[in-house]
C-alpha cells in the first residue's frame, strides 16, 4: 500500500514472492493495477489521497471483530494510557486548534500521569478516556459504507483486504506493510504512516519477523544521508538541530529542554557532546560548551519547498546541488526552474549535465542572456569508481569497493567536499570575523594523499574514539558527555570497533538464524536487524510463538538471547523495571497508538488533498488544517470544475527518480523511452482519446504533452454515486539524456505534509485533452 515494489523495489518483491510460496498472501492497494498488483492475491483500488479512510476502516474492522492482539496492545502500546480531560475531537478538529496559526496547542493532548510523571494505565482498556476507547470512538466513524464512499474501493474488495490482513493479529502470524512515496507524498503523509503504525500495533505485528511497517527507500543512501543529518531539522543521529530560541541558546539549555528523562534518548547529552567533539576537535572544550555556539541556528521552515520559495523571492545567493535535479523532481518544477535564475551562483556536482545544472540553456526554455547565475558543474564519479558505504532500507551499512579509476577527470564526492572545505577554510585562515571564527573552529584533518582524504580517518571519526588515547570505542554505550569521547554519528557507533575492522565490509553470508545474516555488513544500531525485537516475546520474555521467535529471555544466562542482537538492554530481565517496555526509543517504552507530538493530531483523521474533486465526507475540514500554505505564484490552486480529474505521479521499474541515472543509460532508455499518461478506457472515450495519441495534461501550474496510454488497469472510481476519473504519469522525464519527455512535476503543487513538508505529488487536479 503506497508502494509498488515490483516496479520500484523489485528485489524486495522477490522476498514477498518467497513468502507467498510459504503460504503468505500479497495484498496490493493502489489506484492503478500495477505490476505488483499482477502478482497480488488481492487487489483493491483506492482513490489517491484516501489511505486514512482505508486503514481507518481496517482499524475499526480489527477492533469490532476482536481481531487485535489484546495482550500486546495492553502491555506494549500506550492504548492503556489515560488521556487528560479536555481532549476532544469535533468535526474534523482535535481540541486546541488555533485557526490563525493553523496549529494545535498540544498540551490539550497530554496523558494523565502519576506523581512521579509516569503515565497512568488501564490495562483492561475499558476506561472511557483510555487511548484504546478514544481510538475506538474515533474510528467508529470509519464504517465500511463511508469508507468505500470516500475511497471508491469496491466494498467486497475492501472487506477481503480487512479479513486477510487482520488475520495476522493472531500470535504466530505476522503481516507487514510496505510503503513508499505513495503514502508519504500527501498533505496527510505522516498520518498515513501513523495509521499503518496503529494498525500494526493493534495486530501485534511490530518487532516480529515478517512484521513491521517498512519504508522502501527510494535511493541507495537516502537512509544514510538522513542518518547523517542532511535535513535541516536534524544533526547526525537524529539529534534535533538547535533553533534560535532561548531554550536552545546554550548547550546546557538545549540539553535540559531536549533530553527526556526516560527511554534511550536520555543519553542524548553523550551523543551530542561526542559529535561536537568530532566537529570542532581541540576547539571544542568544556569551557566553550564544546563549540555548541558554532552550530547554526534558525527558526524558519528550511525544507525543500520553503527553500525554493525563498530562492524565487531572491533570498538566496548561492546553492550547492549534490546529485539532485529539482527541475525534474521538485514540485511545481517549472517554477523551481525559474527560481534558480535568481541565484548568483550555483555549484552542481553530478555525473551528467542535468535539467537543473542546464536550467539557463535555450533548450530549457530560458534566455541565457538574461540569466546572471554563475554555474559550476563538477563531474562526480559513479559509486563503483570510489569507495565508501551506503545504508539500505534495513539500515544495513554496506561497503562499496572501488572497481575502477574515476572516468576522465571526474572525482569522488568525498574528494570534492574535502577540497572545497579545505580551500574555504584556507581563505579564512587569517581572519577573525564571526563568520571566520566558526569555520576556523571546524576541525578538518583527514590526512590522505593529495586532495583525497583518508576514508579510514573519517570512518573512525564516525564510529568514535577516546579523545585522549585515540582508541576506538566499541559502541555508543561507551560515549560520554564530558568531552572525553569523540563520535561523529552515535547511531553508527560500533561499525568500526577496532583498528582495521570496518564491519560494513563483512561478507559472511551464512544465515545466523531467522534470515538475519548478522555477520554480513553492519546494521545500525548495534548490528540489530529487527527493531523493537523485544516485542516478539511476551511480557514474561517467552516468544509469542515458535514460528515468529526472535529473542527471548534466558533465565539461566540472565540475558536476552536469540537470532538477533536484542534491541533492548540485553541484561534487563522481564521482571525488572522497564523489562516489559520494548519500544526503547519512546519516552514511555511503549508503542504510540496515540501520538501527542504530531502537528496534525494524535490520531490520523481523513482530510481531502489540497486539490480534490470531492467534498470531505468525514467532516467540514476539507484539507489538513495544519499544513503550511505558501503564498504567491508558487501555490496556484486548481478547482474541480476546471480540473475535474485526479492526477498522480509515480515511477516505473526502468527509470529512477529524476531520470539522470537512467535516461543517460541507453539500455534503460530504450525500455521506457517515452513520457506517457495512463488513463482508463472510460476516460479516453469521454475525451475522444485513442491509445498512443499525443495528449495535453493541464493543471493550475502548467501543461505537459505526452502519449496517452489507454489501459484497463485504470478504472474510474465509483463513489458516493459519482464517477471520478484518475490518471497517472511517471515523473522521470526531462529534456536531457537519451529518453526525453515532458516533466510531470510542472503540474504538481507546492503544498506539503503538516509534519514533514513532503510535497503532495500523489493527488492533484488536472484535465486532459488531445494535443491536436
Amino acid at each position, binding site marked *: 500500500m503506497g508502494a509498488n515494489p515490483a516496479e520500484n523495489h523489485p528485489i524486495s518483491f522477490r522476498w514477498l514472492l518467497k513468502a507467498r510460496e510459504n503460504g503468505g498472501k500479497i495484498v496490493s492497494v493502489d489506484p492503478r493495477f500495477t505490476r505488483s498488483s499482477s502478482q497480488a492475491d488481492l487487489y483493491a483500488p483506492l482513490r489517491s489521497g484516501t489511505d486514512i479512510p482505508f486503514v481507518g476502516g481496517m482499524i475499526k474492522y480489527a477492533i469490532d471483530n476482536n481481531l487485535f492482539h489484546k495482550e500486546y496492545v495492553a502491555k506494549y502500546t500506550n492504548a492503556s494510557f489515560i488521556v487528560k480531560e479536555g481532549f476532544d475531537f469535533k468535526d474534523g478538529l482535535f481540541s486546541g486548534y488555533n485557526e490563525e496559526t493553523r496549529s494545535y496547542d498540544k498540551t490539550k493532548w497530554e496523558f494523565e500521569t502519576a506523581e512521579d510523571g509516569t503515565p497512568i494505565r488501564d490495562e483492561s482498556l475499558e476506561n472511557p478516556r483510555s487511548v484504546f476507547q478514544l481510538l475506538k470512538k474515533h474510528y467508529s466513524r470509519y464504517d465500511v459504507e463511508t469508507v468505500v464512499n470516500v475511497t471508491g474501493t469496491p466494498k467486497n474488495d475492501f472487506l477481503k483486504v480487512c479479513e486477510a490482513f487482520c488475520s495476522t493479529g493472531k500470535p504466530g502470524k505476522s503481516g507487514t506493510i510496505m510503503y513508499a512515496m505513495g503514502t508519504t507524498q500527501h498533505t496527510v503523509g505522516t498520518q498515513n504512516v501513523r495509521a499503518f503504525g496503529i494498525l500494526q500495533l493493534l495486530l501485534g505485528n511490530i518487532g516480529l519477523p515478517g512484521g513491521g511497517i517498512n519504508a522502501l527507500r527510494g535511493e541507495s543512501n537516502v537512509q544514510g544521508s538522513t542518518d547523517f543529518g542532511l535535513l535541516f531539522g536534524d544533526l547526525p543521529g537524529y539529534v534535533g538541530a538547535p533553533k534560535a530560541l532561548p531554550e536552545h541558546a546554550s548547550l546546557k539549555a538545549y540539553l535540559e529542554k531536549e533530553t527526556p528523562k526516560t527511554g534511550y534518548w536520555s543519553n542524548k547529552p553523550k551523543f551530542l557532546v561526542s559529535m561536537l567533539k568530532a566537529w570542532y576537535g581541540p576547539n571544542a572544550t568544556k569551557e566553550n560548551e564544546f563549540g555548541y555556539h558554532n552550530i547554526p541556528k534558525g527558526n*524558519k521552515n528550511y525544507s525543500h519547498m520553503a527553500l525554493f520559495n525563498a*530562492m524565487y523571492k531572491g533570498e538566496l545567493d548561492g546553492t550547492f546541488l*549534490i546529485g539532485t535535479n*529539482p527541475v525534474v523532481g521538485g514540485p511545481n518544477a517549472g517554477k523551481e526552474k525559474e527560481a534558480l535564475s535568481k541565484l548568483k551562483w550555483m*555549484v552542481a556536482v553530478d555525473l551528467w549535465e542535468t535539467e537543473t545544472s542546464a536550467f539557463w540553456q535555450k533548450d530549457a526554455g530560458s534566455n541565457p542572456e538574461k540569466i546572471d547565475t554563475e554555474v559550476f558543474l563538477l563531474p562526480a564519479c559513479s*559509486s563503483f569508481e570510489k569507495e*565508501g558505504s551506503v545504508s539500505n532500507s534495513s539500515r544495513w551499512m554496506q561497503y562499496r569497493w572501488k572497481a575502477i579509476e574515476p572516468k576522465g577527470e571526474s572525482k569522488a564526492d568525498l574528494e570534492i567536499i574535502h577540497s572545497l572545505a579545505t580551500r574555504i577554510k584556507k581563505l579564512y585562515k587569517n581572519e577573525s570575523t564571526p563568520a571566520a571564527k566558526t569555520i576556523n573552529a571546524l576541525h578538518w584533518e583527514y590526512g590522505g594523499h593529495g586532495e583525497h582524504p583518508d576514508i579510514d580517518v573519517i570512518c573512525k571519526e564516525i564510529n568514535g574514539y577516546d579523545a585522549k588515547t585515540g582508541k576506538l570505542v566499541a559502541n555508543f554505550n561507551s560515549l560520554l558527555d564530558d568531552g572525553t569521547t569523540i563520535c561523529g554519528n552515535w547511531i553508527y557507533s560500533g561499525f568500526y570497533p577496532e583498528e582495521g575492522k570496518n564491519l560494513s565490509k563483512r561478507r559472511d553470508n551464512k544465515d545466523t538464524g531467522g534470515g538475519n545474516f548478522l555477520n554480513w555488513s553492519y546494521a545500525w544500531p548495534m548490528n540489530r536487524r529487527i527493531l523493537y525485537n523485544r516485542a516478539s516475546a511476551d511480557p514474561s520474555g517467552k516468544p509469542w510463538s515458535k514460528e515468529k521467535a526472535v529473542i527471548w529471555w534466558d533465565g539461566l544466562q540472565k540475558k536476552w538471547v536469540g537470532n538477533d542482537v536484542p534491541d533492548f538492554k540485553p541484561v534487563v530481565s522481564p521482571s525488572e523495571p522497564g523489562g516489559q517496555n520494548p519500544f526503547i526509543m519512546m519516552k514511555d517504552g511503549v508503542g504510540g497508538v496515540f501520538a501527542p507530538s504530531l502537528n496534525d493530531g494524535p490520531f490520523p483523521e481523513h482530510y481531502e488533498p489540497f486539490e480534490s474533486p470531492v467534498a470531505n465526507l468525514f467532516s467540514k475540514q476539507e484539507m489538513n488544517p495544519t499544513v503550511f500554505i505558501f503564498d504567491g505564484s508558487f501555490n496556484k490552486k486548481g478547482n474541480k470544475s476546471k480540473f475535474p480529474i485526479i492526477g498522480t505521479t509515480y515511477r516505473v521499474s526502468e527509470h529512477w*527518480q529524476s531520470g539522470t541515472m537512467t535516461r543517460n543509460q541507453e539500455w534503460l532508455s530504450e525500455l521506457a523511452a517515452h513520457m506517457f499518461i495512463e488513463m482508463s478506457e472510460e476516460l479516453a472515450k469521454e475525451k475522444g482519446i485513442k491509445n498512443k495519441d499525443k495528449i495535453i495534461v493541464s493543471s493550475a501550474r502548467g501543461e505537459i504533452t505526452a502519449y496517452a496510454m489507454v489501459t484497463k488497469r485504470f478504472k474510474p472510481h465509483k463513489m458516493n454515486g459519482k464517477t471520478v476519473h484518475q490518471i497517472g504519469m511517471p515523473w522521470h522525464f526531462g529534456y536531457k539524456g537519451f529518453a526525453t519527455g515532458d516533466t510531470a512535476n510542472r503540474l504538481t503543487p507546492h503544498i506539503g505534509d503538516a509534519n514533514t513538508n513532503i510535497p503532495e505529488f500523489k493527488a492533484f487536479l488536472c484535465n486532459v485533452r488531445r494535443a491536436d
Partner: protein
Amino acid sequence: MVEINLNRRQFLKLSGATAATLAIVELGFNEKEAYASSKEFKIAKSTVTPTICCYCGVGCGILVHTKDNAVVYTEGDPDHPVNEGKLCSKGTTIRQLYTTEKRLTKPLYRAPGSSKWEEKEWDWMYDRIAKRVKETRDASFVDKEDGIIVNKTERIASLGGAALDNEETYLLSKMMRGLGIVYLEHQARI
C-alpha cells in the same frame, strides 16, 4: 582486501561425462585457470569488485568486472543475502554508468549571461567556488539574533546527497553546518 566467496554462484549441476567436458572457470580470479580459447570468454581474466547498487534502497550486491581499465560486465552478487545474484533492470544497467557517452569528464563553467559551457581546470573551479562562498557568507553571516548566538547564513543552500556514501554525507553535513548553512536539504524530503 575484499574477500569474495563465490561458492553460491549458480553453476549448472552437470552430471557425468558432460561436466567433464565443460571447464568451470572461477571467473578468472586465478589467471592460470582462465579460459583459453580462440574467442576469449567475456569475463575471463576480469577483475571482480563487489559493490552495492546505486539505485533504490534495497541494497543489492553487484559484482563489477573490469579489464584493461574498462567495465566489461556487471552482474548480481550471488553471495549477497539480499539479492542472491538477482537484479532488476536498473541494477543490471550500472555498467552503463561508466560506459555511457553522456558522462561528464571535465569541470564545466558557465559565466553569467553566457549561453555555453566552458571547460575549466579543477583548481580554477575550486578556487572560484571558495571565493564565491566566502563573499556570500561574509555578506550574509548572522552571528546573533535577538541576543542568541546563531552563527548562520540564510543566503546559501545545499540540496541533495541521497546517493552519496555515508562518509561523504558525514563530511557534507559537517562542512555545510560548519559554514553556517541552515537551508540544508536532500531527497528524503521529496
